[in-house]
């Protein structure tokens, strides 16, 4: 009965195009935000930060980035892992070359570097579409990982070939390196995820977002209407890579602390992010978060269930985990091919009419 549009009068166009048109939604959103910012940091521990919250947030940012490109602009990319690597190595080079530069700037700048690289690898999209573009971005994936492994300059000639994050602080609290408190890790990722989701929402509600969606739905009509396809596609590649780059930088600096390109940013990661976007819902910001949470948390849940509750041997549990996750993904896609975001929409629609659906 709470969930009603009735009685909510919108008298201006900005009112009518708000993010949360139903006030119940709005208050729920503020409440969730308050819990995430105030309550969670107080109760968080190492396990929750490292196994659940930080990976969900980091992957959400990556999924958000790919969703802008694939979900909103309709350009398929399999180069997400490679672009995350650019973010990570860019961040590492910036941190080591400018030790006094604040880590926040390093992360944002590494996003900007990735945006530049994304534009270059987005150029083929002007001539090729669909599966062929996917193959072209696959080339980016392999090339970038190869690049970071082959030139020792990128990993500062370290003997292991790994990059290891130096310790950096924000407002006096360490956010990278071994002495980082779990709440600091969590909060910096949350801040980036929130800011980037806000940015994505703004970009997709105005004329930039409409030019992307126009290209996605009917590129010829879009061009005839006045959308510059070159500009729209490269913008989408740039913004998407910016997000993915920041995800890569956080993945390396805050989440893992030390990475090696082919292990951390291989083709698997590209597919993983693509799964998140498809399962979450193409062209939905909420879907990016939902998809990332689904893919990251499902194995964690299963592990807790199989090893913790049913006390299976670890090796059997690990293998059956893959089988169950795979089966669940297939089942889920058959039941709801439009993703979690669509499921949420249907649920809201039901709720709006409940308890008198006629």
């Amino acid at each position, binding site marked *: 009965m709470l969930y009603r549009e009735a009685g909510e009068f919108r008298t201006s166009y*900005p009112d*009518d195009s708000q993010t949360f048109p139903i006030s119940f939604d709005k208050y729920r959103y503020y409440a969730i935000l308050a819990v995430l910012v105030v309550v969670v940091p107080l109760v968080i521990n190492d396990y929750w930060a490292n196994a659940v919250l930080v990976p969900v947030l980091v992957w959400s940012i990556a999924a958000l980035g790919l969703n802008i490109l694939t979900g909103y602009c309709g350009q398929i990319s399999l180069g997400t892992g490679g672009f995350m690597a650019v973010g990570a190595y860019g961040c590492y080079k910036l941190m080591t070359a400018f030790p006094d530069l604040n880590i926040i700037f390093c992360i944002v700048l590494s996003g900007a570097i990735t945006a530049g690289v994304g534009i270059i690898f987005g150029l083929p999209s002007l001539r090729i579409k669909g599966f062929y573009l996917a193959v072209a971005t696959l080339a980016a994936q392999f090339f970038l990982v190869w690049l970071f492994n082959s030139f020792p300059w990128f990993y500062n000639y370290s003997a292991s070939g790994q990059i290891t994050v130096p310790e950096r602080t924000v407002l006096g609290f360490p956010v990278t390196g071994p002495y980082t408190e779990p709440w600091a890790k969590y909060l910096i990722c949350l801040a980036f995820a929130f800011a980037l989701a806000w940015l994505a929402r703004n970009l997709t509600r*105005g*004329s*930039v977002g409409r030019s992307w969606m*126009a290209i996605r739905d*009917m590129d010829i009509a879009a061009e*005839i*209407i006045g959308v510059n396809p070159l500009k729209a596609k490269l913008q989408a590649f740039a913004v998407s890579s910016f997000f993915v780059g920041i995800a890569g930088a956080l993945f390396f600096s805050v989440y893992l602390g030390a990475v090696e390109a082919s292990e951390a940013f291989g083709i698997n990661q590209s597919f993983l992010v693509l799964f998140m976007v498809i399962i979450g819902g193409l062209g939905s910001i909420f879907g990016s978060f939902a998809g990332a949470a689904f893919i990251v948390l499902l194995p964690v849940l299963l592990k807790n269930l199989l090893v913790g509750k049913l006390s299976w041997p670890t090796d059997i549990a690990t293998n059956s985990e893959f089988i169950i996750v795979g089966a669940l993904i297939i089942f889920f896609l058959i039941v709801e091919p439009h993703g979690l975001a669509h499921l949420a929409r249907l649920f809201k629609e039901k709720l709006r009419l409940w308890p008198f659906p006629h």
Partner: protein
Amino acid sequence: MGDVAGSERASMGESKPPLMELRGITLRFGGVLAISDVSFDIREGEIRAIIGPNGAGKSSMLNVISGFYHPQEGNILFRGEVRPFMRPHRVAALGIARTFQNIALFKRMTTLDNIMTGRMTLMKSSFAAQALWWGSAEREESAHREKAEEIIDFLGIQAIRKVPVGTLPYGLQKRVELGRALAAEPRLLLLDEPMAGMNVEEKEDMSRFILDVNDEFGTTIALIEHDMGVVMDISDRIVVMDYGKKIGDGKPGEIRKNQDVIDAYLGVPH
């Protein structure tokens, strides 16, 4: 009403200067000659029809005008100046909008978003302003929303404002597509078979919209249509094409009497 209305309307655009002139347009696809040396003009404020049997080159002509095809020979003069080689999105910025024979709407976007996308060339707020949704971006969005709502009112599609257009019936989709083209506030509106596949009632509605657009907004309209009754009723002047050539050009009354046109449509005894 046909003849009377036709002759009344025909007096309107008479003395106006041409908005667009096509001179000696020739378009080839490999060895196929799609348009061969066709010249005609479209005057400011008139409704200009292009008719002809299937494969006559009408749609190709519209594609040439909207910059989608580039003719091998000939010039296009827009407002007295030769239009250089242009990509379609630059042509759109000149104030030329169009609809398509097979509806080309953005199917997953709402009616409102489709119409707002039509105003793409008029929206100026920068990328950064939109990213932060600062004053200028939000103000611009609202100002354009107001214009979009005017078009929604004009076409009577308020109820489907927030419905994804892919789910709408055919007739409404055609109407939304007209709305999207109108949203650009074009100087020249190109309609490729706006009434294809419609029943009589829908055709009457669409004809009324086209006449209203011409009257109220003063938009110059060039249209392709197969329904001769409609064409004779609403257009000021008609170009007839057959096999890529122009075989007739004039007011509806003249076209009706033109022997070449009658031959093209009814066939010639061999």
